[in-house]
């Protein structure tokens, strides 16, 4: 009850601020909470610009989502809970770093796959290399010595 009251008070305290990108008024008063909110926000995709995180985006929706992230942080949600809140509404697409699932296996496996393909190419190349030439015979060596002298 005390915590809930505190959360409400904190929410009300933050309610007067105007929201805009890199607007200091958007930030939470508690620097620790603000740092956490920023860190969470940087993992969340802006659904409008899509290649920016909501922390970097100037879109209206990103600003609303930043606001919600801060509300949830103040309310005492863990990082995972805030991300889960977003995923419940926007799916895993909202996460800039997708979780390892069977659908993302190819994505996460691509470095290993690339390494494997590269290794195969190197192996194939080594095999197809011609054998080193046979050592020179006695007569050939004699001729080489002759040629080097002149």
């Amino acid at each position, binding site marked *: 009850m005390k915590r809930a009251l505190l959360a409400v008070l904190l929410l009300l305290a933050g309610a007067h601020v105007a929201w805009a990108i890199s607007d200091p008024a958007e930030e939470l008063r508690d620097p620790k909470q603000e740092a956490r909110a920023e860190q969470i926000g940087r993992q969340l995709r802006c659904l409008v610009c*899509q290649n920016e995180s909501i922390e970097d985006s100037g879109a*209206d929706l990103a600003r609303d989502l930043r606001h919600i992230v801060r509300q949830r942080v103040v309310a005492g949600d863990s990082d995972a809970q805030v991300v889960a809140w977003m995923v419940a*509404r926007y799916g895993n*697409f909202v996460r800039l770093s997708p979780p390892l699932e069977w659908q993302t296996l190819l994505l996460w496996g691509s470095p290993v796959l690339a390494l494997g393909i590269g290794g195969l190419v190197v192996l194939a190349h080594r095999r197809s290399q011609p054998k080193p030439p046979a050592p020179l015979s006695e007569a050939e060596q004699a001729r080489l010595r002759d040629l080097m002298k002149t």
Partner: protein
Amino acid sequence: MSTRRAILYAAPLVAAVAAGGGFYAVLHRMQEGSFDPHGVPTMLLNRRVPGFELPGLASAGFASTDLFSIGHPVLINFWATWCPPCIEEHPVLMAMQAQKIPIWGIAYKDKASAALDYLQTRGNPYVRNAIDAPGRVAIDWGLTGVPETFLVDGDGFVRWHMSGPITPKMVKEQIEPLMKKYGG
């Protein structure tokens, strides 16, 4: 020419043809509106609509409870007066209204006066009108932009979703069959 050589020469050609075919298919689907590379699939598909309660524009608004036992399918259309694709979509909505397809409208991040003005001058395709001025309910719906339309069945479950303007082709090929399927 050895078969190995033949394969070496043919491989790039085959790859180029396959890539060209793929690009053509994707671009064609983008042109007819059935594929949107920026589209975010809705999490609500085959789930019940999220809980909400919104004020109306001129008369009463509506709430999720109105959709839970509505008994017939309905389209929920998020729109805004400041959104050009919504204006582009508007005649299609009017045509659906003429076909007796029920559409409920939610004005997103808009002013009630501006929304009413828009409906008065261009025509009101909606059976019921609500407004989500702060855009908070829209986030619970997973909205990424306007227009966005959800087909909700008689029990309040989302059965179809489109982010972006609806085209006459979509009405004929997707919405009409679904309305029939869910008893419209």
